[in-house]
């Protein structure tokens, strides 16, 4: 089985059992993760996630990961860039020793504490700062209220005589009536008068509600003053900007003051003490200012310390994240292994490519040597009737193409992989629709640029559309290359033609401007379409007929090619009945109708009808008449002598092959089943009994061993069954099911021969549309500018060139390109792959750190 693995088939896989000494289990699995070619099977599928052996370790790692993510979020908050994981050496990201993990755990614990403390104190300080700022505003604003109030005492006195003067004013006036201009005395007077006041700040949007509520509850017995704080206050808890107002409320009586306090607190206002006395107030302001400046310096220090700490962490955070991620993956993999308590061994079962086995053995040996263990790790191939997973090893060139195929379905283990031929056929069919040298060249250049700057681009952040184009850069490269070729064949470069060779046509000089060209002789234009057709009146007539036939012929080639792989598959799986019951009748049916059609197309082209003095017959009518009235060909419609007989024969072949396709395989399978049943055999697949072929040296100890808590009862050979592999894979033979399946297949195949051939006409439609669109674009923009003259032409040339170029890129390259790509995709998935693709495979998902980090990047 040591054949080379190629993209033609999926790699041959082996199920292996690994007996790993308990002490080095972690190291072994981690080495396998670096290697990335093994897929562990879950041997404890009955056990829930909490009951597994290494749940504790995983919890611990989860905690570390959470701490690391906390650092990351803190860094984002502080706008500190994390050092990219690309900047680290390979060995820094390698799986670490257990001790290093412990160290990392301690360290991140400490750092988390530190960062948390710093953060907390920073927030407290910030809050303190906000309070002080608010207080300063209150002092300032409230102070001006007081000053104003005292300045107005004279006015208030005059209002004394009014009956309806409010209570407060009255009282104030009463107080003001004292013949005393002394400000200090007046300030004392509020307290004397039993007028209290409440001052504070409140968010601006709540102010209206606040006022209303106060007014209603106190029935108007208050005097309120408020003013806006011009600066924005930032709430440190959620970093939100709040606009606030300062208010001072004067009211009479202790109870009312208490009520006001309660109301304002419940509405989210913050109350601050302000002294009535203006000297005291000045002192207060002064004190607040000093405290604020002290606080600011402390804040700056704290912030600096925090930033320094975070910057320090940022330098190695990516590496830590990767290390933890790897470690977690290792323990998750270890959880899939079964654990033998008595012998202190871990038993793992894994799928791996047979060709990688030596590599795996070498790696394990290496780990063993490094650990200095005398007990070797045993790698044991086991035979199984389980379906191995499908693994097609790709490189960066083939990856995109294989993804196209995998998007449709996973190929059956070792069947022909359509990914190999897709490398050519997919971009080629695209190019048939996209055929224009100029557009192809633009696409080619774009792909080249993406390949040239592959590394920097793959490491940078990309938006969705670009990342898709970037992923398919090699597909684009091939598409561009073939588009240039088909562009040369169609002789189209931005809708104009090349005149590389001498034309086979000559336009006579007489009778111009309206002339019809004639052939120069037996010379024909050697490569692509003659440029004499460009700009002619019946250009479309010619390219229409040409492209229609081209697409039929291309479709026939593609489908026949794909159909041949069903032969390859049948031979590989050694299923003769699939050759004689599926492939041969299918092929004959298809060729009898559509093979014949392609033959007549080529034949009609190769006959010089006018030289023979005959009219070229219509092929469409021929095909219809072949079925409607077999055996008769009208005199004028004959392609070649003996046509009627050949066509009758072909129709017969096609008709006979339908029942063969329908019945041969089910009947054969039934016969075979009955024969084996008569000989007394039972179905295949129920005799599998997998025992590990361990050389008996360590089998003598104890009979009853416990595997996953289940006693293994099979003691005669000392063999253990790590997992019951008794799931039946060979199913019961049921004739009706086989028959139904084959009937569906037959109907589908015959109808699809017709509909799929018709489906290839999309090549015709899209390539015509693409060509016409680019002609129209040229004529509307640059073509117009060329007809002008003088200075206007110069201006218009610049303007229309810009328009033409932008539209060429946006519409003709991007939009048309996408649509042609989707059509080509469909031709592969439906028309080609349905001819041979079996599918139903299980994708190979190796345990690989590289894949893990690609799927879930740390930065």
């Amino acid at each position: 089985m040591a054949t080379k693995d190629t993209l033609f088939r999926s790699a041959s896989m082996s199920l292996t059992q690994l007996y790993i000494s308990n002490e080095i289990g972690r190291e072994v699995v981690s080495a396998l993760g670096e290697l990335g070619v093994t897929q562990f099977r879950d041997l404890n599928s009955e056990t829930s996630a909490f009951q597994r052996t290494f749940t504790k370790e995983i919890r611990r790692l989860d905690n570390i990961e959470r701490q690391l993510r906390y650092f990351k979020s803190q860094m984002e908050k502080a706008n500190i860039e994390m050092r990219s994981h690309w900047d680290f050496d390979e060995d820094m990201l390698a799986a670490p020793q257990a001790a290093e993990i412990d160290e990392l755990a301690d360290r991140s614990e400490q750092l988390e504490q530190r960062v948390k403390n710093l953060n907390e104190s920073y927030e407290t300080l910030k809050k303190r700062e906000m309070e002080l700022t608010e207080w300063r505003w209150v002092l300032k604003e409230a102070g001006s209220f007081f000053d104003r109030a005292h300045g107005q005492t004279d006015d208030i006195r005059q209002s004394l005589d009014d009956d309806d003067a409010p209570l407060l004013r009255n009282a104030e006036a009463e107080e003001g009536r004292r013949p005393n201009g002394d400000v200090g005395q007046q300030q004392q007077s509020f307290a004397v008068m039993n007028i209290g006041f409440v001052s504070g700040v409140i968010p601006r949007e709540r102010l209206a509600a606040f006022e209303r509520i106060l007014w209603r509850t106190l029935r108007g017995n208050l005097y309120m003053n408020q003013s806006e704080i011009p600066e924005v206050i930032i709430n440190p808890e959620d970093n939100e900007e709040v606009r606030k107002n300062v208010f001072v409320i004067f009211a009479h009586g202790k109870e009312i003051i208490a009520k006001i306090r309660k109301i304002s607190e419940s509405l989210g206002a913050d109350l601050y003490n302000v002294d009535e006395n203006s000297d005291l107030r000045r002192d207060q302001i002064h004190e607040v200012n000093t405290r604020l400046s002290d606080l600011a310096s402390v804040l700056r220090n704290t912030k600096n310390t925090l930033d320094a700490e975070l910057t320090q962490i940022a330098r190695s955070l990516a590496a830590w994240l990767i290390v933890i991620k790897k470690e977690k993956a290792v323990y998750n993999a270890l959880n899939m292994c079964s654990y033998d308590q008595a012998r202190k061994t871990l038993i793992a079962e894994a799928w791996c490519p047979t060709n990688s086995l030596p590599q795996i053995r070498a790696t394990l040996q290496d780990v063993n040597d490094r650990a200095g263990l005398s007990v070797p790790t045993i790698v044991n191939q086991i035979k199984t009737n389980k379906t191995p997973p499908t693994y097609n090893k790709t490189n960066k060139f083939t990856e995109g193409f294989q993804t196209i195929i995998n998007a449709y379905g996973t190929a059956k283990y070792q069947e022909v992989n359509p990914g190999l031929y897709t490398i050519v056929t997919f971009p080629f069919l695209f190019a048939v629709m996209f055929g224009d040298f100029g557009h192809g060249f633009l696409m080619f250049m774009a792909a080249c640029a993406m390949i040239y700057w592959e590394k920097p681009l793959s490491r940078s952040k990309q938006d969705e559309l670009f990342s898709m184009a970037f992923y398919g850069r090699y597909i684009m490269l091939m598409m561009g290359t073939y588009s240039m070729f088909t562009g040369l064949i169609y002789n189209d470069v931005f809708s104009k033609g090349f005149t590389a060779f001498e034309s086979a046509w000559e336009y006579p000089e007489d009778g111009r401007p309206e002339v019809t060209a004639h052939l120069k002789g037996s010379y024909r234009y050697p490569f692509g379409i003659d440029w004499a057709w460009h700009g002619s009146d019946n250009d479309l007539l010619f390219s229409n007929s040409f492209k229609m036939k081209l697409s039929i012929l291309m479709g026939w080639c593609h489908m026949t090619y794909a159909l041949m792989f069903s032969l390859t598959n049948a031979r590989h799986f050694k299923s003769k009945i699939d050759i004689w019951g599926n492939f041969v009748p299918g092929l004959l049916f298809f060729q009898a109708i559509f093979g014949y059609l392609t033959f007549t197309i080529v034949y009609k082209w190769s006959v010089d009808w006018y030289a023979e003095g005959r009219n070229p017959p219509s092929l469409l009518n021929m095909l219809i008449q072949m079925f409607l009235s077999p055996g008769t060909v009208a005199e004028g419609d004959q392609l070649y002598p003996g046509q009627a007989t050949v066509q009758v024969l072909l129709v017969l072949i096609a008709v006979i092959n339908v029942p063969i396709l329908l019945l041969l395989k089910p009947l054969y399978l039934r016969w075979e089943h009955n024969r084996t049943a008569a000989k007394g055999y039972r179905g295949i697949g129920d005799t599998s009994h997998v025992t590990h072929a361990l050389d008996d040296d360590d089998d003598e100890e104890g009979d009853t061993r416990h595997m996953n808590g289940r006693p293994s009862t099979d003691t005669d050979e000392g063999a253990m069954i790590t997992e019951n592999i008794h799931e039946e894979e060979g199913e019961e033979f049921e004739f009706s099911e086989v028959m139904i399946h084959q009937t569906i297949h037959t109907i589908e195949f015959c109808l699809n021969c017709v509909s799929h051939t018709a489906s290839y006409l999309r090549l015709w439609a899209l390539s015509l549309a693409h060509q016409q669109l680019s002609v129209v674009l040229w004529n509307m923009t640059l073509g117009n500018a060329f007809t002008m003259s003088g200075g206007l032409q110069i201006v218009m040339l610049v303007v229309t060139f810009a328009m033409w170029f932008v539209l060429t890129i946006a519409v003709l390259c991007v939009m048309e390109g996408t649509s042609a790509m989707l059509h080509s995709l469909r031709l592969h998935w439906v028309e080609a792959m349905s001819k041979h693709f079996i599918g139903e495979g299980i994708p190979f998902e190796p345990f690989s750190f590289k894949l893990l980090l690609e799927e879930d990047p740390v930065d």
Partner: protein
Amino acid sequence: MANGWSLLVGFVVIVALSAAAYFFSPKGENQTIWRSTLILSFASCYIMWAITFLAQWHPLIEPKMSKLRPGYPGGS
């Protein structure tokens, strides 16, 4: 220069190129990809070229121009 025999000549050239691609593909794990891609490309390109050549071999219609200036060979 170019007549019906070109189809055969082209075929021979393509077969020769394919053979060269088969034998001179770089060895290693990507040999199959090289071989398959090159040979399939040659074949596809040949088919496309041959179809185009065949379509113009015995033309059934002639190009017509309604606005051709004197002395101008046509095409655009």
